[in-house]
């Protein structure tokens, strides 16, 4: 057991199409800069998934890669074991789909998901592409949730999952809500990547993983970026 907070970057070679590796970097740096020892543990395709990490980050990917990723995560269920003991998990785009009970592709074939999230996903008629602004649900964190979406999937949440945010601009899960939270599992359709754009969400995940609210960390470039993106989205 390492004394560092481990951030598992899960299958970046399959689910890393949209720069989502950046989410792991942001978590690691925001901890390291505050004196919390942290490390990124990269789990590539073909390697067993450890169950000992504090945080797991799963990115977006193309259809065939997504199927392969589900197969791998079933064969090596380290992340699911970690989830059952309350590890923090962030799933992006494909993540929200494969974490659910089922996901149905554009070809109408339904695939079983990992069952970590009470949700089902299916292919929507059109691809949702563009800037997203959403209000965090239940006061989960301050400010708005900001990101860029590029997906065809639509997601319906069951009673055990609640939305991450309510959409002001963009599509999200269904045009009304965006993402999902269930225990310490957070899912979102948003790229950008999502954590560089939303340091409050990054710090919430860090707080869950370490049990302590992290000290304030002001990065002027991030503040400026959030203002620019909100303006670009017309908010």
């Amino acid at each position, binding site marked *: 057991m390492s004394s560092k907070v481990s951030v598992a970057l899960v299958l970046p070679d399959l689910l890393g*199409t949209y720069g989502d590796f950046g989410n792991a970097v942001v978590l690691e740096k925001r901890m390291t800069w505050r004196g919390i020892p942290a490390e990124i543990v990269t789990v590539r395709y073909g390697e067993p998934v450890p169950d000992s990490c504090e945080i797991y980050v799963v990115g977006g990917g193309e259809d065939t*890669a997504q199927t*392969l990723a589900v197969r791998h995560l079933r064969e090596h269920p380290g992340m699911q074991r970690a989830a059952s003991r309350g590890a923090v998990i962030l799933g992006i785009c494909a993540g929200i789909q494969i974490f659910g009970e089922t996901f149905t592709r554009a070809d109408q074939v339904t695939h079983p998901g990992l069952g970590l999230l009470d949700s089902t996903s299916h292919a929507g008629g059109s691809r949702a592409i563009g800037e997203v602004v959403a209000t965090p649900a239940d006061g989960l964190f301050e400010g708005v949730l900001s990101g860029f979406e590029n997906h065809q999937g639509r997601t319906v949440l069951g009673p055990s999952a609640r939305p991450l945010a309510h959409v002001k601009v963009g599509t999200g899960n269904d045009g009304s809500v965006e993402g999902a939270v269930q225990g310490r599992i957070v899912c979102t359709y948003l790229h*950008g990547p999502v954590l*560089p754009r939303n340091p409050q969400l990054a710090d919430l995940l860090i707080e869950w993983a370490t049990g302590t609210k992290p000290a304030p960390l002001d990065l002027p470039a991030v503040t400026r970026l959030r203002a620019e993106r909100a303006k670009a989205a017309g908010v």
Partner: protein
Amino acid sequence: MSSKLSQKMGLGAGGMIGGRVALKLDPQALAHLTSGRSVALVTGTNGKTTSTMMLSRAVSFLGQVATNHGGANMPDGHVTALSKQPDAPYAVLEVDEGYFPEVCRAAAPAVAVLLNLSRDQLDRVGEVRTIEKSLRTALGSVAGVVVANCDDIMVTSAARDCANVVWVATGTGWHNDAASCPRCGDPIRWEGEHWHCTGCDLARPRPDWVTGDGYLVAPDGEKVALSLRLPGKFNLANAVMATAAAFALGVPVREAVERLRAVSDVAGRYRTIQRSGHRARLLLSKNPAGWSETLTVVREADHPAVLVINAQEADGRDLSWLWDVPFERLRGRRVIASGERATDLAVRLTYAEVEHTIVPDPLKAIDAMPPGAVEVIANYTAFRDLNARAAQ
């Protein structure tokens, strides 16, 4: 007239509007204009413009060549280029990946060159596997020679079923989009330079041409020094692909290499501008694979760097890809983040622990550097606008 108008309106470099009008008047314009010519098409994610210029130089050994220099690589740009040179018996055209099927049908190419496929402008172009499938279908109907990069899994999958393929080992790799097989989805396994799918029979074909460190090996085993004026490993790859394509059209290898090695400035790329006591080298990079290669090129010296990022429609509006670029390599260097999306870049550089300042105007960013050499790396529209302003 309309070309002048296009320039006035700031639409591209004047290569578009003439073609757009012609296509409106005659939707078959591309088929008519290519009919009777020997046509080579060049497509792929990176290196299209450079390879097209190299190939057109090489083919000029055989006769006059009509070509779309400068990256106007959609059908209207092709029509404009072909109309300007109605009597040229050869045409060498750079083709946007998305338009390749349409252009291929109209132009019936004697040679199709497929350089590489990696993630690029995911919101506009789509995901790599979608492009691979559409190229595979289009290439299936090509009666001519397909020149393809066998070190690229996506390219190999797209070209493999063609009747007449010439395989080129380029030694260039961006494998992050190809962990799983484009044919069956199973994992790809690498053993040295060889790769094969663990689920189906997709595997690296035996190359006919091989790219070495500064030379090429032709199908007959002859080793020819390249001595290019352009930097970087990816330009060696472009040169060998162009040579193989020229050879397929009938150009002797040494004649092809002698002509293409003289290329030193590709639509403003790689050129050095003198400005306010600075020698600024202008480099274009549009996507993670391109940036990764360019960051290797600028590693040769420790010059300050101006990085210019836009996210207009032609660039792709989603900048998530900035996180796939290994900017960490610039640590310790003097860096300015510039362009319309300088702030997105600044956030990326912050987390890469690269010290930097933000100067959105790239010319002012160059001026802000200490006198001497400066590397300027810009993405598509940022480069285009900077190049136009620098020319004034």
